[in-house]
């Protein structure tokens, strides 16, 4: 699970949950692998990312690597910033661990890089 994906996931489908966002991450195995850097693409997706959630997620698993706490001005032309964003969004993979619902504490396992957000019938 990439941190970009984490940025998009919620537990809102659970019946007792109102927002369900952001999910906390408890990572036991994190892998970093190189992904081709496409600055235009990163610049385009930054407005779609909840930056505070991304920053907190990266910090919680020790993968900040100098990522600024806030989006910098003129980020479209800031290669250094875009590279850092690229790294945190796309190169960091949580392989094993769990996601935790902020409202109920329900844990969703991450195995082999795949989060399991399936719910039991009585949770929907």
């Amino acid at each position, binding site marked *: 699970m990439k941190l970009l994906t984490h940025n998009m996931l*919620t537990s809102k489908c659970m019946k007792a949950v109102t927002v369900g966002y952001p999910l906390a991450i408890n990572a036991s195995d994190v892998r970093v692998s190189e992904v081709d850097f496409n600055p235009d*693409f990163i610049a385009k997706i930054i407005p779609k990312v909840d930056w505070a959630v991304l920053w907190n997620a990266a910090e919680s698993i020790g993968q900040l690597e100098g990522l600024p706490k806030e989006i910098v001005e003129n980020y479209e032309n800031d290669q250094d910033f875009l590279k850092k964003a690229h790294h945190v969004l*796309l190169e960091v993979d949580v392989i094993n661990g769990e996601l935790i619902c902020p409202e109920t504490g329900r844990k969703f396992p991450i195995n082999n890089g*795949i989060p399991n957000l399936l719910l039991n019938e009585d949770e929907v």
Partner: protein
Amino acid sequence: MPFLKNLGVEFAVEIGSGSGVVITALASFLACACFATDINPEACQATAETAVLNGRKVDCVNMDLLGAFRNRLFDVLLFNPPYVVTDPCEVVGNGLNRAWAGGFHGRQVTDKVLSTLDLLLSEKGVCYMVLLKENNIQEIQRFMNENNFKSDVILERKLRGEHLYVVKFSRIL
């Protein structure tokens, strides 16, 4: 395909990605972030492996439809749903039956996605869905029109025992 290139896709997703060939092919074609979901954990694993074997990046999540994703994220949504007309009681669990069992009119799962399409797609988002003649395409088109979506049949294929369509849904602007 030129349409998708021009759309400026940032996020694409496939529901029920199964083996992963479709979303991997899309990932080869578009420079966007590709996601996949499947209700079957083994299918999720297969999707992830197919993407890796083809040198593509697809992030797969085990969930029912897109229930665990934030609203209005996706610019492209692909779905080859369980469209086969079956007894509604077959539409249960996370097993292989979920790959085909469509319940009443084969529409039980399809309708769930189409009735929430507004919350799944981004402003410019489009959805491509495989449908069966028995699903009653005209009725689906009428319903989607009432919900401000236009539907275009972009492919039609008659196979032995199956008359299939690919329908593209997009917002009426």
